[in-house]
């Protein structure tokens, strides 16, 4: 929305938004890894991952006020700040999360039964992924190096970031991409915390949105999230369009499902990380 005016934001706002979106990515990937384990019956691993995820959700509640629906962004900045005590708490909790998830992910990725259920299942070739319009980890697991964070929005231009790509395109590759992105997002958060600049957390915004249109693409945990806003000078917006990443990844399911075994259906559908409630938008 800030691109409608356009408004210049302070660096601190960009860094805070980066930290919170990476924290949301951490908790979403931990959720997905738990669901993957649940999809082929490994329920105790599912419970272990969600136990670790509770620590990240507590961090989110300490800093933004709520666990999943953070609503910490306003037009012109953010609503809450991270002080020194919270910075140390975030660093400690993230170190614990990294240590515990390393041992669990090693057990998940190297397990023979997990490999039997996911390697070679639901293969999406590079050409299919690009022509179907897939986004996010689904695309990166098929060998395409495409990540919206490379457009350097928020503070990603100043952080050390490379997209994670795997080439085999099956469910195992998608799990590997998300597991490596989990560790990468913990590293990005710690780096952003150490570089957090001083400044205001909200910029004053005057007046109604001018008659202008703006497009914003961000990298949600599931893929590319697309926002389009059009103002007309009054208090209400003329048009607002949101395209969620699950909507772009769903055609891949149509290609993955035909010909697979019945027990592979949940694994295939889950490997694109569907959020059906977002698709309804």
């Amino acid at each position, binding site marked *: 929305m800030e691109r409608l005016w356009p408004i210049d934001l302070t660096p601190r706002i960009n860094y805070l938004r980066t930290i919170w979106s990476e924290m949301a990515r951490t908790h979403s990937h931990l959720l997905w890894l738990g669901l993957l384990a649940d999809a082929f019956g490994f329920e105790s691993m599912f419970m272990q991952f969600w*136990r670790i995820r509770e620590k990240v959700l507590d961090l989110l*509640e*300490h*800093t933004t006020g709520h666990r999943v629906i953070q609503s910490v962004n306003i037009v012109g900045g953010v609503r809450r700040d991270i002080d020194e005590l919270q910075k140390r708490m975030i660093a400690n909790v993230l170190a614990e999360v990294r240590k515990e998830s390393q041992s669990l992910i090693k057990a998940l990725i190297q*397990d023979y039964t997990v490999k039997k259920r996911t390697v070679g299942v639901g293969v999406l070739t590079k050409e299919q992924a690009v022509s179907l319009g897939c986004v996010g980890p689904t695309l990166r697991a098929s060998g395409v190096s495409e990540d919206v964070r490379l457009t350097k929005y928020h503070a990603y231009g100043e952080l050390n970031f490379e997209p994670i790509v795997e080439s085999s395109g099956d469910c195992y590759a998608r799990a590997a991409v998300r597991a490596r992105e989990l560790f990468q997002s913990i590293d990005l958060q710690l780096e952003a915390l150490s570089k957090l600049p001083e400044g205001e957390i909200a910029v004053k915004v005057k007046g109604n949105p001018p008659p202008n249109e703006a497009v914003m693409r961000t990298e949600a945990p599931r893929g590319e999230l697309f926002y389009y806003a059009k103002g007309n000078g009054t208090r209400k917006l003329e048009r607002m369009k949101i395209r969620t990443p699950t909507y772009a990844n769903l055609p891949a399911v149509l290609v993955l499902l035909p010909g697979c075994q019945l027990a592979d259906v949940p694994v295939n559908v889950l490997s694109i990380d569907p959020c059906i409630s977002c698709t309804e938008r």
Partner: protein
Amino acid sequence: MPVMLPTVLRNLLDGPATRLYPMQVREPFQNARGHVVFNDEKCTLCSVCALRCPADAIDIDKESRTLSFHPARCIVCEVCVLGCPSDAITLISKWRTPFSRKPVEVHEARGKKPRTPM
């Protein structure tokens, strides 16, 4: 199998990972968005909260001087708290207890509007 063994042993020997709720309740965090509380003494029925609420959880009736709040519709977004000019709404960090029927809170506003000097 040996990769999972340390985790399995740790799970067997450590205690439960969950809290025995409702016997043990965790203290709410300081920054948490819990629920919204109205103060009858300060409310002047200016209706800023009702106009701003995205979930239509506040109804203002000027004839009977009451404010009806529907907690089941409230999404705890803090917009009313930030918009109230007389500081009559506060945000408490404790979450609301579950209810089986949707309640409606009716508050009688007793605040007086500050008179502007002529």
